[in-house]
């Protein structure tokens, strides 16, 4: 029983951790919380479930990731970039606006009710683990390693780090900022796509599921420290396990309540995060 609860919490935590990487990346480069990030994840989830009606799993995953990437690219290119030119301070509200539009469009197309994965999941051999559960941790690890390699060892990664460290100076040194933004959004789109697939298979989707995931994923970033992408993965896993344990002890609502209270308390005590530098304006 305990093993089962910890297992569920761990995998949900991996998912939260994966989503938080996307949040952290966007925050570090744009200095805004992109509230539409998890809505793009939900869109990818719906694309995956819908694609399963006419194609196989592999193609459906590719389509879901492609949807996440295209949507992230379009959000940045068509909306965020334009708003940045006019009034960057309002970008935060723009992301909220986009989030509201996505949620309601999805609710009109797919209805408010829970859309579940249309197949019965089979465990792998006799391991008591589903395929998505077996894959989530390696995928998270690969994403983290790729991110590490990309940021530390490539020229574009160096440009991103330069932009994060000092945007104005990076601009004067000729770093192609807009290109950097696009790359970051595409990467976050890939993460959203994979997250959407995992969420739809394991938990089902509603148009409004993104909000709760956003709360937990971004708080993982905050608690880990916004400049610490890998720390947010660890905190994400802790959040997942905490949700799972409280749900076992009480119920789902209480689990959410206690976890939120815990997160607020931690942020109250350590507002800069556990591993983070003083990056935010306080």
């Amino acid at each position, binding site marked *: 029983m305990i093993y089962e609860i910890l297992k569920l919490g761990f995998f949900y935590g991996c998912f939260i951790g994966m989503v938080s990487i996307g949040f952290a990346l966007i925050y570090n480069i744009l200095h805004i919380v992109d509230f539409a990030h998890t809505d793009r994840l939900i869109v990818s989830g719906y694309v995956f479930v819908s694609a399963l009606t006419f194609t196989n799993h592999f193609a459906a995953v590719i389509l879901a990731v492609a949807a996440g990437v295209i949507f992230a690219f379009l959000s940045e290119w068509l909306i965020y970039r334009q708003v940045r030119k006019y*009034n960057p301070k309002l970008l935060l509200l*723009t992301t909220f606006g*986009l989030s*509201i539009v996505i949620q309601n469009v999805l609710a009109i197309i797919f209805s408010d009710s829970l859309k579940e994965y249309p197949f019965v999941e089979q465990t792998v051999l006799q391991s008591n683990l589903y395929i998505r559960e077996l894959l989530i941790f390696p995928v998270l690890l690969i994403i983290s390693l790729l991110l590490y390699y990309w940021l530390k060892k490539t020229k574009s990664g160096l440009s991103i780090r330069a932009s994060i460290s000092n945007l104005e100076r990076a601009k004067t040194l000729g770093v192609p900022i807009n290109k950097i933004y696009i790359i970051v959004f595409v990467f976050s789109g890939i993460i959203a796509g994979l997250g959407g697939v995992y969420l739809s298979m394991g938990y089902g989707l509603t148009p409004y599921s993104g*909000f709760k995931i956003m709360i937990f994923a971004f708080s993982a970033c905050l608690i880990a420290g916004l400049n610490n992408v890998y720390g947010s993965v660890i905190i994400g896993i802790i959040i997942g396990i905490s949700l799972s344990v409280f749900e076992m002890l009480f119920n789902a*609502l209480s689990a959410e*309540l206690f976890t939120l209270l815990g997160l607020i308390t931690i942020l*109250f005590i350590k507002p800069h995060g556990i591993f983070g530098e003083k990056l935010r304006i*306080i």
Partner: protein
Amino acid sequence: MDLLIYLATKAVIFIIFLIALNSLMLGKMNLWAIGNIVYFSLGSFITGFVSNNWGINDNRLYLLFLIVPVAVSIVSLIFFYASRVFKQDFFLFFSLFFIELNFVANKMVAGSSGYSHIIRPSGIQSDLSLLVFSVILLIICIVWINNFDKSRVNKLHSVMRDSEILAFSWGININKSQIPLFIASAILSGLMGVMFAFCTYGADPKLFTTNNMIILFALLILGGIDSIQGAVVAGLIFVFFTYSLESALSSTFQIHAPKITQIVFGILLIVIPFIMPKGLFGKRNFQ
């Protein structure tokens, strides 16, 4: 006519709520206080709880105008100290925690459909009397805010808003100075929650969500920051435009009409920076 009175009452309630948000939180302290919806919701739910569970008579329901301010003050004080280190988008995100926490707590206490059959106190039982009562509150609120705007304390708040470092160097205790305004805004929001519960005879957790609050916030920016006129425009648009649009759309789109209305507001949020970053009556740009 009844519908018009009902909508006008709702509009007045939202206008007072938005004045509390716009003129006090956003205008004086530059706080993106979407968490004010928590106080509004607290007012509604306490009203629902008292009305449904305590079985007190109509006259004693006026006690809510004492109970709610006390409860809301305590909650806002906790929130003030908990969120003190956060500014702007982080304050907003921290507020989201409280909204979500409040949503979960409301569902636990009142169930997912909230409270219904809330009774009104004697004296304001008819829709018209409730409207008159709300308008009186609005006038008091406007007079108070106008007087406050002319006061010396307001100048002090302008300094703190524009540069906390400067205010600090002048020896101003920022926390101490901001607490009264923070609590006043929360109390006003809580009282409007009570009025809203009386007006609609219910308290539904789904009404006090982040999306609705963000839409109100966006309408405030459209109306104009730190201006009473801005809050009035935002409140009127929120109630009358929403109702008109949903009514117009409902014949064609039926159950999807509220969602389409939300999409319209979402698009509005996206285009506001392009069309009017300062709003209609704004005293300054969004900072």
